[in-house]
């Protein structure tokens, strides 16, 4: 029996997955990408878009083998009660760690850009309280909020890039293909790790109103992500140049600072901060929810809500102790995180996929399912 009784429409799921991948990607990755691939970062974006589409198709086709069941239920069916639970706990702990870095990235942004004198643990605690409240209200509630926030986020981003466009110099994208191909590939691996976070959809497929149509959300999600991140990267490189972009902490935010229309539309970066805070808290809500739901299913609870508040303590502590300083966060994200996310997420998905294929062959002879 599934814990979550709420249902979300496929459109809400589409927006939720897009937001959950995009919220941190759009602000963090351009600097890391241009460090690895310089002005050829757009090629990394294209390769990663293709990789992300494949990862998405793969994840959804695993989920569609068991459209009525969630990750925990079928991994227990496939791998047995102990090993199946162990795989699910890896998933939950991975999302716990992702949440910890997201909370940290949130406070890093606010401290470096807007409120430099606040201790970051205060911001971490405030954000986690907000997120825990959202998770407590349930999947339906934050998917509906996301349905409002995400289009606004996109619209604001589009307006800001349109206003910054006159300053851009597309000559900065030349010379083409001067960076080593391994650097470009590493750049696309960084992006692919963010795409791999989309595997949290595995827990949501049984909560969709039409689980059978889940495959249809993969292409729109990958196109939205590809469009946004390529506009972002190309715009940043042509505005600041690859060298300068790679030295910034949050280049997209710096871009918003440069916008001025006439003499009165200025300092719209606070708008970006506001929207980014809401969109990243929705991202953390989705991962928090998935992680808590997996833990509740693993321990056979009737509801996931008792675990929400204890989890908040762990999350705050991990976000504070996990990284020494901002540089460590950045170093972790550019070196370790891509491999961790890609191996853990696609590895476990692949493993379950192979196991389910074996199961299917077994079933063909005997009972039909």
């Amino acid at each position, binding site marked *: 029996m599934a814990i979550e009784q709420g249902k979300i429409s496929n459109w809400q799921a589409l927006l939720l997955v897009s937001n959950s991948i995009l919220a941190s990607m759009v602000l963090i990755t351009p600097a890391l990408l241009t460090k*690895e691939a310089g002005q050829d970062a757009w090629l990394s974006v294209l390769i990663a878009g293709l990789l992300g589409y494949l990862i998405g198709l793969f994840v959804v086709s695993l989920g569609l083998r068991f459209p009525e069941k969630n990750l925990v239920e079928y991994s227990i069916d496939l791998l047995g009660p102990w090993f199946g639970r162990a795989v699910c706990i890896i998933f939950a702990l991975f999302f716990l*760690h992702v949440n*910890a870095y997201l909370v940290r990235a949130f406070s890093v942004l606010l401290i470096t850009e807007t409120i430099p004198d606040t201790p970051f643990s205060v911001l971490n605690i405030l954000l986690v309280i907000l997120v825990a409240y959202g998770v407590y209200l349930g999947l339906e509630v934050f998917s509906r909020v996301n349905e409002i926030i995400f289009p606004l986020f996109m619209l604001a981003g589009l307006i800001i890039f349109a206003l910054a466009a006159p300053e851009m110099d597309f000559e900065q994208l030349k010379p083409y293909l001067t960076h*080593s191909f*391994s*650097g470009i*590939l*590493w750049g696309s691996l960084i992006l692919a790790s963010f795409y791999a976070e989309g595997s949290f959809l595995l827990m949501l497929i049984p909560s969709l109103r039409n689980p059978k149509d889940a495959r249809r959300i993969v292409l729109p999600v990958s196109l939205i992500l590809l469009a946004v991140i390529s506009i972002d990267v190309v715009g940043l490189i042509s505005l600041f140049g690859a060298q300068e972009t790679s030295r910034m902490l949050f280049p997209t935010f710096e871009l918003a600072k440069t916008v001025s229309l006439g003499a009165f539309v200025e300092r719209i970066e606070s708008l970006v901060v506001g929207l980014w805070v809401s969109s990243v808290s929705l991202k953390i809500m989705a991962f928090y929810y998935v992680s808590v739901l997996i*833990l509740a299913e693993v*321990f*056979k*609870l*009737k509801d996931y*809500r*008792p*675990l929400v*508040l*204890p*989890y*908040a*303590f*762990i999350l*705050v*502590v*991990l976000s*504070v*102790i*996990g*990284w020494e300083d901002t540089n*460590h966060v950045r170093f*972790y994200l550019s*070196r*370790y995180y891509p*491999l*961790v996310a890609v*191996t853990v997420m696609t590895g476990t998905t692949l493993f379950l996929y192979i196991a389910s294929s074996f199961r299917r062959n077994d079933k063909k002879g005997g009972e039909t399912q």
Partner: protein
Amino acid sequence: MFLKVLLVLLLGAGVAYYEVPKLQQKRELMVFSCFLLIGLIMALALVLNIPLPNPTNAIEFIFGPLVRLLYPG
């Protein structure tokens, strides 16, 4: 220091006071208390400046050889 410890304990007590009456099964109570205990121990260790095992270091240790092998340059 004392105030912070008191605050953490009060928060923990508040969470327990809010959640425990809703839990009927023994299993739910057990899992909830385990999680709350882990969370409180971690928070107290953080407040009292006791070094905690850092999961990021563990990940960097496990994936270190792979990163050194694959990272370009």
